[in-house]
């Protein structure tokens, strides 16, 4: 139903039993509402949310031809969905409903001041009516979802996610950068805590991926670009040439035998040779050969040896275009570069090796056929493991715990013990973290096996004068002494760094990364495999350092999450998005593009104009508030609507009022919590709800001052907690920095503007803040009331 030109507003004021009615004089509020412009019907209810209350609303819509409904009751966080449904059932668009919070924000916090509470309730109703008058009907956006998925990365996480989705019946495109899938797990000797063979359990999974009819395996390839939004991503994948025809090659290996070029094999951590034509490892999937064209001398021997005529030096890169509905990013992590920790001598002392090198050396198919030998061929008998190499280390930019290395080193020590029970093994650690199922048992077995644990981070490693042995120096923090331990082999337990392609993919898909460079989850606890971008999920070590089990768990979780929109076939997006209201004024300055963490605004290079991809917009309004030319507006939180609220709230006694802009997710919930907790505070605050502090434009604040507001508060989420990733950051820039600086030139004491972080858990903080502000206002009211304002002309860029 489209809103008629003349608003006919119905106001329903709720007693909520005694919750509101015992403090607020509801009758007086009703009388007040009757006097407001365009209000044609006012009704009080004992419980508006109950069935009879809802029926009254429906009846009134019909009887009085209401085209806007205002309910003054509890917080919209509780019953806005209820009443939206109610008006919708009566044939009204759900966005023509406005809720006024006179319980959490009024009766519950001003129980000691019924008069103040009643006045405030009247004001809040007026503000609600002012907004309702301007409301427009909106439509949620429904987007069809293409039932194919893109998985980036063919490590164990990518393989698991692919198999799960493929088994559900979805077509999966699995893109792997290397020539074979398998990732880091394929390089490991044994897995923990069970010490079973890594490739033996991974190999069959790789075969399943290679053979699955629903999996389109694209190896030796990288994603080059991505456009679109949930349900409709258009992706370009570049496939690098192998110089071997995949269809013809049957993996016989005749070419390898004749190739004269010998190079170190990256798969074996460069400890074992390969040829210029090669496959990384025997279990590679697809088992197709590949020419390292930079090293190939083009002698042609392989061409002669190949009876399938598969060799083709004329191959060039190919681009494959995909259309997918969902994306799972499983591009992995990379082991920390041990060269950075110079005090450990990696790269300088030949018997200092990394944990990845150790995996190849101890592996039966590795360079020494599984015998633990040093580079000089001597067996290693005294082995020291150094933990936290590139973990818990601010110096090298990795303050986090890589979480897998403690148990991985214990596993490696156990493998040495399996080969050689007499080996003398010491593990130097800071804190031993063995938190998974069966991990403590592994640690316990290791101690029982006689593996020595020394609590102390290694300070330095020196080489002995003769024999290339090493001296490891650490404090034994359990005794306070310093230990100098001689070892003939030192293994550095590498932490995990962000994956090599993380930043490129982050830019391409607009997925934010955390301060350590790993992909960020939509919510660290409740949406651990979703990214802030709808339709894109993360699995495995792309999100954080993880061991195999956690990687597989996250992959199955991501597959399951990705299947939801694909199964539903469409997704609905709330209609509170940003949109272009004055496209002719757009200069293509792209400030909105910079403000949006979701990539919703795009600049059309030819027309120099922005378009908003509404399906990508999450509705924070940060771009709207910062648009220098008022080109953009946010539906349902239109500038006009919010200005009307400001004006309404400041009609009477403005000098005594505090206008508080609360973000929906943190400070609004925080002020609700103050209500639930009955933390009383001064009744002269008036809250306006926005989705994000990023939506609060300078104009809104200046309008409040223009109308005489005593003080203005903008209360965003704490810095790292923004529901829209960075809205609060831009709010801080715009309000707390720029506007605050400009206030004196407008004749406004900067103390009248507060910018204060309030979380959803900080009800007490909010109530104390308001009391403190009210006190400050009272002390300064005479001065501030008489400040002569020198505001920029309205409509002009502020």
């Amino acid at each position, binding site marked *: 139903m489209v809103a008629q030109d003349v608003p006919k507003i119905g106001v329903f004021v709720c007693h909520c039993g005694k919750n509101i009615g015992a403090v607020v004089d509801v009758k007086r509020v009703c009388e007040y509402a009757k006097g407001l412009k365009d209000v044609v019907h006012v009704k009080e209810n004992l419980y508006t949310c109950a069935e009879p209350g809802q029926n009254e609303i429906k009846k009134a819509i019909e009887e009085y031809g209401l085209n806007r409904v205002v309910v003054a009751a509890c917080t919209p966080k509780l019953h806005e969905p209820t009443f939206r449904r109610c008006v919708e059932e009566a044939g009204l668009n759900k966005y023509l409903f406005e809720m006024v919070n006179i319980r959490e924000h009024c009766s519950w916090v001003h129980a000691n001041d019924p008069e103040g509470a009643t006045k405030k309730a009247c004001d809040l109703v007026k503000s609600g009516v002012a907004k309702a008058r301007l409301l427009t009907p909106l439509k949620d956006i429904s987007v069809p979802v293409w039932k194919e998925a893109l998985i980036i990365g063919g490590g164990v996480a990518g393989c698991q996610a692919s198999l799960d989705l493929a088994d559900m019946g979805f077509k999966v495109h699995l893109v792997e950068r290397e020539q074979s899938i398998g990732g880091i797990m394929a390089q490991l000797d044994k897995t923990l805590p069970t010490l079973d063979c890594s490739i033996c359990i991974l190999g069959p999974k790789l075969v399943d991926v290679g053979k699955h009819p629903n999996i389109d395996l694209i190896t030796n390839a990288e994603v080059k670009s991505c456009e679109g939004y949930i349900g409709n991503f258009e992706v370009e994948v570049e496939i690098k040439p192998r110089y071997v025809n995949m269809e013809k090659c049957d993996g016989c290996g005749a070419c390898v035998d004749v190739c004269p070029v010998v190079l170190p094999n990256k798969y074996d951590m460069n400890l074992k040779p390969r040829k210029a034509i090669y496959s990384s490892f025997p279990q590679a999937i697809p088992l197709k050969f590949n020419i390292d064209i930079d090293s190939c001398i083009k002698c042609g021997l392989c061409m002669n040896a190949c009876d399938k005529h598969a060799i083709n030096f004329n191959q060039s890169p190919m681009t494959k275009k995909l259309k997918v509905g969902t994306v799972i990013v499983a591009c992995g992590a990379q082991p920390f570069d041990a060269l950075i920790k110079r005090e450990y001598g990696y790269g300088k002392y030949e018997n200092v090796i990394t944990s990845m090198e150790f995996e190849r050396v101890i592996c039966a198919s590795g360079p020494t056929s599984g015998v633990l030998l040093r580079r000089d061929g001597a067996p290693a008998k005294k082995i020291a493991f150094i933990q936290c190499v590139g973990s818990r280390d601010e110096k090298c930019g990795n303050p986090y715990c890589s979480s897998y290395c403690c148990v991985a080193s214990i596993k490696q020590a156990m493998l040495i013990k399996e080969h050689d029970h007499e080996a003398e093994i010491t593990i130097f650690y800071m804190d031993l973290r063995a938190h998974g199922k069966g991990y403590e048992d592994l640690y316990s077995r290791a101690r*029982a096996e*006689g593996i*020595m644990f020394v609590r102390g981070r290694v300070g330095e490693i020196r080489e002995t004068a003769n024999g290339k042995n090493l001296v490891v120096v650490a404090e034994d923090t359990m*005794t306070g*002494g310093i*230990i100098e331990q001689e070892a003939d082999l030192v293994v550095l337990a590498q932490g995990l760094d962000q994956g090599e392609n993380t930043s490129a993919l982050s830019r391409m898909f607009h997925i934010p990364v955390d301060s350590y460079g790993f992909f960020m989850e939509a919510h660290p606890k409740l949406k651990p495999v979703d990214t802030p971008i709808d339709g894109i999920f993360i699995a495995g070590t792309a999100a954080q350092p993880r061991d195999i089990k956690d990687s597989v768990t996250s992959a199955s979780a991501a597959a399951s999450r990705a299947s939801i929109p694909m199964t539903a076939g469409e997704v609905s997006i709330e209609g509170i998005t940003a949109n272009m209201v004055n496209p002719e004024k757009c200069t293509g300055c792209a400030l909105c593009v910079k403000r949006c963490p979701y990539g919703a605004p795009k600049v059309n290079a030819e027309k120099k104009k922005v378009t908003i991809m509404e399906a990508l917009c999450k509705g924070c309004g940060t771009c709207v508030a910062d648009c220098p030319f008022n080109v953009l507006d946010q539906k349902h939180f239109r500038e006009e609507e919010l200005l009307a609220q400001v004006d309404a709230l400041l009609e009477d006694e403005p000098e005594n009022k505090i206008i508080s802009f609360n973000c929906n997710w943190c400070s609004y919930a925080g002020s609700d919590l103050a209500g639930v907790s009955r933390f009383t505070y001064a009744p002269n605050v008036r809250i306006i709800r926005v989705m994000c502090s990023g939506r609060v434009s300078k104009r809104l604040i200046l309008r409040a001052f223009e109308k005489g507001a005593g003080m203005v508060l903008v209360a965003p989420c704490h810095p790292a907690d923004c529901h829209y990733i960075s809205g609060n950051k831009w709010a801080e820039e715009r309000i707390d920095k720029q506007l605050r600086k400009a206030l004196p030139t407008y004749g406004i004491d900067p103390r009248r503007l507060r910018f204060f972080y309030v979380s959803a858990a900080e009800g007490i903080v909010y109530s104390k803040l308001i009391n403190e502000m009210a006190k400050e206002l009272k002390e300064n009211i005479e001065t501030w009331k008489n400040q002569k304002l020198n505001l920029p002309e309205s409509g002009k860029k502020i």
Partner: protein
Amino acid sequence: MSMVEKIDFAARNEFIKLIGGHDVTKCFQCGTCTASCVAARFAGNYNPRMTILRALRGSPKVFEDERLWLCGSCHKCSERCPENVEPTEVLMQIKEEAFRRGAVPKAIYDKGDLILKTGWSLESASADILRRRVGLQPLSAINTEDINKIAKITGLAIQTAEAER
């Protein structure tokens, strides 16, 4: 004395062998033993956790440390040790080894000698006086022959004799 220590794996392995059936290597240095220890509470820097750790590091100083003998074998640590290391037993083994090495404080030898000679761990004249006053028989002599036999089997007698020399 240098602060620098070395881990002596050979000595460590000997110690583990010495402890025998006890899973002393399972010790993860939680400190429950020291926290439960009455002696540690009242006797300055006596610390059973540290004693076990030093032994596991193969430090020979462990056996010379007179503080060992502050353990009263109350077994609270063994009762509470989460890893079943049984510190009381471990300390007992260390004490025995210290005995074998002749690294025992004189007072402890004197005590051993008294037991071998009298069967009592302390000489008490007042006990008999007290007993007489309440009409009890004086304490009967203890058959030290059996005690000496046990001491001989366990090697204690030889060691005390040696120590006296």
